């Protein structure tokens, strides 16, 4: 089973966990239905569509309502620190959560104490907390965009908001930033750096790049990073080797754009609708057969 942890932008949404279902631009969990716009619901939607396409594993989510005040995130952190060891997950992806160094450390300890350590992916706020707490190396994957990579490369910045200007100025030099971030111990074992060119990184080395198909508009569309992380979660949990999973995720995410000719006004659900077609074009029958079932 694949675990995904994140928030829903609705203060009334309680702490909920359970298997997630695709309900046509909405996702269902524990008797509740959530619209797919951006953030963790978009990541979940992408994961569900991808898993459905390749016959992958069930998706299990841990969600809570939080609109930025952090109370929901802290409730979820407390739950995970107490109960994570009761779950058997092949992949555990952390997403939009209020960055909190203390709680991050407790949740990471709980993840490491699980009966079988899952492959750990951190994105968004949880990735910020991992870097801030000096614990990036405990993760299998980070999925930063170029701005977030600059933050990882800045030894002093506790949040992308404080990335120093002389580092931000080097954003066009992604390989330099990757080296610098790795040198400071601020990278996961592997990374997908999302941008005009997507960089697949293993232990600080660029092992592959993906730059086609290219759509300038994708940078403006909120949620395209979330969909990539959803794809990566499913592919990494479906028997693909780490670099291969990252490459497929990056390519499929771009192909979702190729199938709808996006503009800067395109909304991410339109791209997520294309995931099955995009993935089907990439994952051949042999790979489908090699998909491990479990959870």
């Amino acid at each position, binding site marked *: 089973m694949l675990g995904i942890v994140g928030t829903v*932008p609705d203060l009334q949404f309680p702490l909920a966990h359970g298997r997630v279902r695709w309900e046509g631009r909405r996702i269902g969990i524990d008797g509740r239905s959530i619209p797919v716009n951006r953030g963790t619901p978009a990541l979940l939607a992408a994961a569900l569509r991808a898993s459905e396409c390749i016959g992958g594993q069930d998706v299990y989510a841990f969600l809570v309502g939080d609109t930025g005040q952090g109370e929901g995130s802290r409730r979820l952190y407390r739950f995970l620190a107490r109960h994570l060891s009761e779950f058997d997950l092949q992949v555990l992806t952390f997403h939009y959560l209020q960055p909190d160094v203390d709680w991050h450390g407790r949740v990471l300890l709980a993840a490491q104490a699980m009966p079988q350590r899952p492959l750990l992916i951190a994105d968004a*706020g949880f990735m910020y907390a991992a870097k801030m707490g000096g614990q990036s190396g405990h993760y299998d994957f980070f999925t930063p965009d170029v*701005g977030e990579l600059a933050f990882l490369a800045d030894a002093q910045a*506790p949040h992308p*908001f404080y990335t120093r200007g002389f580092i931000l100025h080097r954003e066009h030099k992604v390989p330099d930033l990757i080296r610098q971030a790795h040198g400071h111990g601020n990278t996961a074992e592997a990374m997908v750096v999302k941008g005009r060119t997507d960089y697949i990184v293993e232990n600080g080395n660029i092992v592959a790049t993906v730059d086609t198909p290219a759509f300038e508009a994708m940078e403006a569309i909120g949620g395209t990073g979330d969909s990539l992380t959803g794809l990566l979660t499913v592919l990494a949990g479906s028997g693909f080797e780490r670099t291969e999973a990252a490459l497929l995720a990056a390519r499929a995410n771009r192909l979702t754009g190729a199938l709808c000719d996006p503009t800067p006004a395109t909304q991410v659900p339109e791209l997520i609708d294309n995931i099955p077609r995009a993935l089907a074009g990439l994952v051949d029958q042999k790979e489908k057969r090699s998909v491990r079932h479990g959870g």
Partner: protein
Amino acid sequence: MFGFFKKKKTVSGQREPQSSVDRGLLVFENTSEVIQAENQLKKAGWPVKVMGPPPEIRTGCDLVVVFPLIEELNILRALESAGIAPTQVVPVSAPLLAPVDLFQTKDFGDYLMVRAANMKITVAKDSRRIVNISGGGCPDVPYLAEAMIGQTLADAPRPRDLGHTLCGYALELAFTELQRTC
């Protein structure tokens, strides 16, 4: 608000060192209280700034209000009467982090995108309607996107009013820059 954002830079791009001996930090429960306190104190004429806290009091998604120590009692009184008392008041003892002050603008023809730190906001040039918000990692980003997308720059709620985190604060800066340029 956000006057701190226009501070001068040295030739190398590093921010000018600031004297810290006469300054204190007001630490609050969350970023929304920081923003409220900043608004309140600036309205009352105090020369305060919002900055990043030093490592010893940093917990996560933080901002603090920097104030002249000599004014401590008056400032605390004003904040208490406004119902936003800080959780801690400490003297500045280490260099503080300055928020990002670089914007990147991208022209897509019919659309214009502005980025501040990790937050991007895009508008249609003809209608000045917000068509997308991307980037960020704090939980108020999807909430702000839901509230702002589809609204014009004139009518949209401001991130500073609805947001609570540093991502929300970065979006406010990008929003302000977009209002200035579009």
